[in-house]
């Protein structure tokens, strides 16, 4: 029965998609016309709240935003009456495994990490990203329109992240950025237990430092080789290699993958929990001039001023990480507020301690931010921490994260405060296209709710 039903529901889904003319990885294939969302309470994120606002979406972008009466509604616009609704930019989760896992306990549906070695910068998440995952519509229904997808935290260098949009005709339309950041980790989870190196934090750090030095050496060697005139007798050279230089030069994809990060061109995102681990890692980061985004930092209460002094952005959380025994119960709950108070640019992620985090719980992203508000984070900062701040950390600040003219029309309409668990999202727009408010779960609900 179980499996039969699944087959049936998949068939049903396919039919529904055909009926909508949206046979695509994650719907949203059609470009929008002009839509005017009127009468809603606009949370712009960048320039405050507009109680009775008008938002014009045109050609997939925000064409106008402002108070009712001050914005001209084009005559050809489809009017969406948003009176009584709250309108805000699509939420962005800074740390997910969307498209890298399906059924949590089933390794055959997961491509989370490559644990054969600790240094794996040449693992590209875009090679595994499964655009058709059932998890994306579930997250989208609660207003999440964009996300960073990163490997799991088993390696010191786990691979390179992607930045996705939670709609699109296929993988290529959904991936807005490839290799946007290097996913790194430091702490107790990356070491190999038993007799294998590295089995200690000393081992992990020395291995990391050696890898970065190797990459620098590789670059110097490569650059020198590329400058040499081509040898006439080198017939066996790889024809696909560089046009200039030594065609016999053998590229090392692993070391090469590190170069943009050694040049500070893109950020490294470091998953680290303990304060003393942050301090150890930052020494290496400073030595190699890495552009750091700290991730988690849920046990760093004693070094918050140091973190602020480094002027690095921080993805804080999951806010639901448990405090240590003999810490006050709110030691982690208050971290976003404590960091923001010190001027740190923060993002908040959706993971949950003990539960299925990372991918299945992405829909709970707004509640994590709301919980930070309960423990002292100003509301506007919380909303930023799941929208504009994330966009800016990953280089999408010009196109995403706020209701501003010219930005991508990723917009959410809800019947109340987006950060409250009781609020129901009514409509999600991605690139100005109204997304079907369905998921595998709504189909099951509707099938059995008859």
């Amino acid at each position: 029965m179980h499996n039969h039903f699944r087959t049936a529901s998949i068939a049903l889904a396919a039919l529904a998609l055909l009926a909508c003319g949206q046979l695509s990885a994650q719907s949203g294939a059609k470009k929008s016309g002009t839509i005017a969302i009127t009468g809603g309470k606009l949370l712009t994120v960048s320039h405050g709240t507009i109680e009775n606002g008008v938002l014009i979406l045109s050609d997939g972008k925000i064409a106008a935003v402002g108070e009712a009466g001050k914005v001209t509604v084009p005559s050809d616009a489809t009017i969406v009456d948003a009176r009584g609704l709250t309108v805000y930019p699509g939420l962005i989760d800074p740390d997910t495994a969307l498209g890298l896992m399906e059924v949590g306990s089933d390794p055959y549906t997961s491509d989370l990490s490559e644990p054969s070695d600790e240094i794996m910068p040449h693992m590209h998440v875009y090679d595994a990203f499964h655009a058709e995952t059932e998890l994306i519509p579930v997250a989208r229904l609660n207003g999440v329109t964009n996300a960073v997808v990163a490997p799991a935290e088993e390696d010191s260098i786990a691979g390179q992240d992607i930045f996705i949009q939670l709609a699109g005709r296929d993988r290529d339309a959904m991936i807005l950025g490839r290799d946007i950041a290097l996913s790194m980790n430091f702490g107790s989870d990356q070491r190999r237990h038993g007799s294998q190196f590295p089995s200690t934090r000393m081992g992990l750090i020395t291995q990391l430092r050696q890898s970065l030095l190797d990459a620098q050496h590789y670059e110097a060697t490569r650059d020198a080789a590329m400058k040499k005139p081509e040898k006439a007798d080198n017939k066996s050279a790889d024809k696909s290699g560089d046009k200039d230089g030594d065609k016999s030069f053998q590229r090392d994809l692993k070391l090469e993958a590190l170069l943009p990060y050694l040049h500070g061109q893109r950020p490294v995102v470091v998953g680290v929990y303990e304060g003393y681990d942050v301090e150890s890692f930052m020494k290496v980061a400073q030595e190699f001039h890495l552009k750091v985004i700290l991730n988690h930092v849920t046990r760093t209460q004693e070094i918050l001023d140091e973190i602020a002094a480094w002027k690095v952005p921080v993805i804080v959380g999951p806010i639901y990480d448990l405090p240590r025994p003999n810490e006050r119960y709110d030691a982690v709950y208050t971290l976003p507020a404590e960091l923001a108070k010190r001027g740190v640019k923060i993002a908040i992620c959706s993971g949950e301690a003990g539960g299925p985090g990372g991918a299945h719980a992405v829909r709970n992203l707004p509640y994590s931010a709301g919980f930070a508000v309960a423990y002292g984070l100003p509301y506007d900062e919380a909303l930023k921490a799941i929208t504009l701040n994330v966009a800016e950390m990953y280089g999408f600040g010009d196109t995403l994260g706020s209701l501003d003219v010219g930005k991508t029309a990723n917009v959410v309409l809800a019947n109340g405060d987006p950060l409250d668990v009781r609020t129901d999202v009514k409509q999600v727009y991605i690139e100005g296209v109204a997304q079907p408010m369905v998921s595998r779960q709504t189909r099951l609900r509707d099938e059995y709710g008859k």
Partner: protein
Amino acid sequence: MLSVVTACLSACVAAGQTANQDLVIRNATVMTASHGTLQNGSVWVHDGKIAGVGASVDAPATAVVVDATGKYLTPGIIDPHSHSALGNDVNEATSPVTPSMMMIDAFDNRDAALYDALAGGVTTELLLHGSANVIGGQAVVIKNKFGLSRDAMIFPNAPQSIKFASGENPKRVYGSRNQLPSTRMGNFEIMRQSFEDAKVYMAGWDAYNAKVAKGDKSAVAPKVDLKLEALANVLRGKLYVQIHCYRADELLTEEAIAKEYGYKIRAFHHGLEMYKVAGQIAPTGTALATFSDWWGYKDEAWDAIPWNAVMSMRAGVRVALKSDSNDHIRRLNQEAGKMVHYGGATEDEAIRMVTLNPAWIIGVDDRTGSIDVGKDADLVIWNVDPLSTYARAEKVYIDGDLFFDMAAPGFGTPHFSGVMHGAPGEGSEDGDGD
């Protein structure tokens, strides 16, 4: 004795009251869980019990008054599925049938998870055996009087529950060792055989008791077998049967086996596919203790939908939310709030899912779980509506005594000082597939 006295003295200072002194919490929005919400309501606590609730109460002038203007008052949150404070002793996974395991033997009353839960308003927990075994051990019910002695934390005279499990966990644990069970067929056949064994055991005792009743002095008592005795107590209806079960087909099979052997199932735990068969389960009276929105963490959680709780409730099943997690236990009020979003539960219905309904599942709903005269004064004062994301438990009372006060220094625990046990861990037995 000395330590109890010391604890009481410190509590009295923090709470500004003595154990016998009356307490009035007034001007609160009182969510009673049994008879709606009172605006500007007052609750009078006398001798650890609720003595009055309403627009005004007849408390003596000597009562300590807590002004809760602008705040919310609810019954204490009750978690009907927790593995907190059991260390690493959640599963005696050495045999698929271990009904004589008593979880109280593993209970550590200084575990930090109890404190974290208390600060989330949790006043009562059912600490269950894990789900590695088809028939696990017997639960312990605690009142979360963090800081008191182990014995003082046991819920007095609560019914004894026993944990069963079906589906993936037992078959994975034993199947991976090439032992029975490695399939659902194996799971259920082990149950049936266990009850067949128990029937023989019971018959032996029945025969002996009959002889004794007739005055036969030569009658020799059969051996007491703790395992069979526990199973016999299931058949005798002396134990509340709490079953870990996910899939719709298994919910039906469990009911069929219960009917065949003549016992009642108190509640299905997880039951993520209850929405598919709620109409068939409702007439049995079996309740559901489920997650709000966990899904996808394993195959048998793949069809989980967040509307499960409300859909099942609408079909007539008594529904509670539970944590199964040292994390979620700290914010079950928010999990209840999600039910307003997923399926449109009323605030009353949502609050009941984390108070009165779990109290029923545990079998203590005549004593706690709602704000009614005569019940234990297990109460939580919240800064805002407890169903919102922004709610913080400010004060938590158990039996009328203040056990958590957010404004108090340090841990905010008038009765606890010293060192907590435990490492930060997930405390999740099922959710992460372990």
